[in-house]
C-alpha cells in the first residue's frame, strides 16, 4: 500500500528517465540521507564512527568500484586491495611532496594514479576471460603489494616500511592525522562517497553503463553490434580503479591513519568482493547493504557474548566469528544469489502490489 505506484504517470521520456521515477523511492532516500548527514553524526559514539560508520562508507565505495568492473562490465577482479594501495600510496606521496595541497583534492587526484595502473593491468582482459582473468588480476595483487614493500621511495624511506598519515588541514580544520576528529572525517568521507555514488549511478544508467553491461552479458555479441570491447573494458578498468583508488586513499587517510603494505593484501580484496557479491553484483545500492552486513556483522558478533554474559574466550569468539561469517556467506548466496539488492527489489515488488500476492 505504501508502495503503490499507480497514479504516477510519466508524460515524457525525460521524466521516465529521472533518477527516481517512483515517488516513494525518493522519499525513502531523503530519509536515509537525513540520517546519514544529520541524525547519525549527532548521535553516534566515537566507537560507532570508527568501527561502523566510516568503514562502512569506505568499504561501500571500494565495493562500488569493484562492482563497476565485475558487476557491470563482467570482469572478475581479485586484486581490488592492491589498487586501493595504489590510491593510498599515491595520496601519501602527493601530500608529502606537496604539503600545501588540499587533502580532498589530493585524495581525488590519487585515484588517477590507480586508474592508470588499473588500465595497465586491464590490458590482458582483452584476451583473457573468466577465471583466467580473475587469476591474472592476482598478478596485480601480488606484484603491487611486493612493490609497496620494496620501493622505499613510496614510503619515504621510513625504517618501518609503513606510511603514517601526517596531520592535514583544510580551511583551518584538521581532516587527517591523529588529531582529526571523527566527525570531520566522517563528513569528508560521506561527502566524497555521496558524490561518487551519484556519478556512478549516472554512468551506469547511461551509454557507458549499457556498453559495460553488454560486454558483461555477451562480449562477442557486443562487439558484433558495434561496441569497441577494448574501449569498453579499459574504461571499466579505469573508472573502477579510480574509485577503488579514492577509496584506498580514504581508507588510510580518513580512517586507519597508517598502513603497511600487507594491509593491501588479498584478504582485503576478498572482503570487498564479498561486499559486492553479497550486496548484489550490478547494483549500486547493494554495495551499501553488503558493507553494512560484512563490516557490521563481526562487530556485532564480537559484542554478543559480552552482552549476554556468556563466558567465552575472545579467541573462541573469533573462531566462531570466522565460521559464522563463512556460513552466512553461503547462506545468503543460497537465499538470493543475486544479493541483498535483489532481495530488496523483490520486497519492493511485493510491496507495490501489496496486499495482493501476485
Amino acid at each position, binding site marked *: 500500500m505504501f508502495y503503490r505506484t499507480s497514479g504516477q504517470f510519466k508524460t515524457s521520456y525525460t521524466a521516465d528517465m529521472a533518477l527516481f521515477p517512483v515517488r516513494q523511492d525518493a522519499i525513502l532516500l531523503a530519509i536515509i540521507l537525513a540520517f546519514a548527514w544529520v541524525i547519525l553524526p549527532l548521535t553516534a559514539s566515537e566507537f560507532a564512527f570508527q568501527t561502523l560508520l566510516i568503514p562502512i562508507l569506505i568499504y561501500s565505495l571500494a565495493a562500488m568500484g569493484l562492482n563497476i568492473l565485475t558487476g557491470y562490465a563482467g570482469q572478475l577482479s581479485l586484486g581490488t586491495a592492491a589498487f586501493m594501495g595504489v590510491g593510498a600510496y599515491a595520496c601519501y606521496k602527493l601530500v608529502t611532496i606537496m604539503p600545501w595541497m588540499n587533502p580532498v583534492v589530493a585524495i581525488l587526484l590519487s585515484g588517477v594514479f590507480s586508474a592508470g595502473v588499473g588500465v595497465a593491468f586491464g590490458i590482458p582482459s582483452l584476451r583473457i576471460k573468466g577465471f583466467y582473468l580473475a587469476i591474472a588480476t592476482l598478478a596485480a595483487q601480488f*606484484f603491487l603489494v*611486493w612493490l609497496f614493500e620494496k620501493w622505499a621511495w613510496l614510503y619515504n624511506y621510513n625504517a618501518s616500511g609503513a606510511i603514517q598519515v601526517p596531520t592535514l588541514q583544510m580551511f583551518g580544520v584538521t581532516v587527517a592525522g591523529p588529531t582529526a576528529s571523527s566527525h570531520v572525517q566522517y563528513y569528508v568521507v560521506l561527502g566524497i562517497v555521496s558524490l561518487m555514488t551519484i556519478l556512478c549511478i549516472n554512468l551506469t544508467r547511461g551509454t557507458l553503463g549499457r556498453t559495460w553491461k553488454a560486454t558483461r552479458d555477451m562480449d562477442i555479441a557486443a562487439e558484433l553490434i558495434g561496441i569497441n570491447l577494448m574501449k569498453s573494458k579499459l574504461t571499466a578498468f579505469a573508472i573502477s580503479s579510480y574509485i577503488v583508488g579514492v577509496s584506498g586513499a580514504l581508507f588510510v587517510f580518513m580512517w586507519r591513519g597508517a598502513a603497511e603494505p600487507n594491509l593491501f593484501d588479498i584478504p582485503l580484496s576478498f572482503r570487498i568482493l564479498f561486499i559486492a557479491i553479497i550486496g548484489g553484483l550490478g547494483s549500486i545500492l547493494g554495495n551499501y547493504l553488503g558493507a553494512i552486513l560484512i563490516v557490521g556483522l563481526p562487530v556485532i558478533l564480537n559484542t554478543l557474548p559480552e552482552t549476554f554474559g556468556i563466558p567465552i574466550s575472545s579467541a573462541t569468539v573469533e573462531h566462531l566469528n570466522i565460521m559464522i561469517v563463512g556460513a552466512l556467506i553461503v547462506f545468503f548466496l543460497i537465499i538470493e544469489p543475486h544479493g541483498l539488492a535483489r532481495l530488496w527489489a523483490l520486497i519492493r515488488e511485493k510491496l507495490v502490489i501489496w496486499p495482493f500476492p501476485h
Partner: protein
Amino acid sequence: MDFLNSLLVQPFADMFAAPDFLMQVLWEGLVSGILYALIALGFVLIFRSSRIFNFAQGIMVVFAALTLVGFHEMGVPAWISVILSLGVMFVLAVSIERVVLRPLVGQPDIILFMATIGITLFLIGFGELIFGGENKIMITEELGIPTGEFIFEPFGGFLLLEQKDVTAVVVAAVLVIALLAFLNKTRMGRAIRALGDDHQAALSVGISLQTIWVLVWFIAGIIALVTGIAWGARAGVSFALEVIAYKALPVLMLGGLESITGAIIGGLMIGLFEKLFEIYWGQPLLGGNTETWFAFVLALFVLLFRPQGLFGERIIERV
C-alpha cells in the same frame, strides 16, 4: 651496460660457475613445483566436474593434514589415523554437497566461487576451534615415509635430495597417472567430464549430480590429504600453509583449468622458473621475494598467447 650485464650475462655465468648449486636450485624448484601441482590437481578435478572454481582446496589441504596429526595426537596409530582422516574428508565432501552445492545448482560460476570462499572461512574457523593455532609437526616417520637424504657430489660440488621430497615426487606421479586413467578410461570419469560440460544434459542421461559431486570432492579430499602430508613433512602443519595454496592458481592458469596434465606440467614449470628467477635475477637485482608474484606474471604472459592455458580446453566461441 652494467645493468645489461647483470641481467643477461652474469646470471648465466653464475649458473655455469656452480653447476652443483644450479642443480640444487632446479631440484628445489622441481619439488615445490610438484607440491603446487598437487594442490592444483584438486582444483582441476572439481573444476572439471562442476565448473566450480574451488577456492577451498588450499584450506582442505591444511584441514586434512591437521586432522591426521590431530588423530595421531589422540593416540591413534598412524595408519589408522590416515583412514580416519579419509573418513573425515568423506564426511566433508558429503556435507559440502548437501549444504552448499545442492542448493546452488545452476547458479553462475562466480556465485559458486564465492560459496567456496565461504567454505574456506568456515573451515578456517572450525579448524582453529578444534585444532588450535599452533604449528604441528607432521607424523612423517610414523607413516613410514623415509626421512633420510641422498647426497651427491656432482662436479665436485654438493647436491642434497631429501628422501621425503623424492617420495612426494613419486607419489605425485602415481596420483596423476591414476587420475588420468580414471578420467579417461572409466565410466565415472566420463560422467565427470560430461557433468563439467552441461549439468542439465548430464542429468537427463541419468548421471546423478549428487553421487558424482560427493565422489569428486572426496577425491579432492584424498588429494588434499596427500598434499598435506607432503607439505607438512617439509614445513610443519599450520594455517599459515594456506597461503601456499595461492601458488596453485598460477599453475592452473598456466596449465589450463581443466587439464590434469596441465596441472603437473604447469606446476613443474612454475616451480622451476620461479626458483631460477628468484635466485639468479630476483635476489641480486630486485631485492628478493619475487616468488610472491613471479608465477602469476609468468602465467599471465603465457595466457596472452594462449588464453586457455597450455593444456586447457580450447574456448569454443561461436555465434
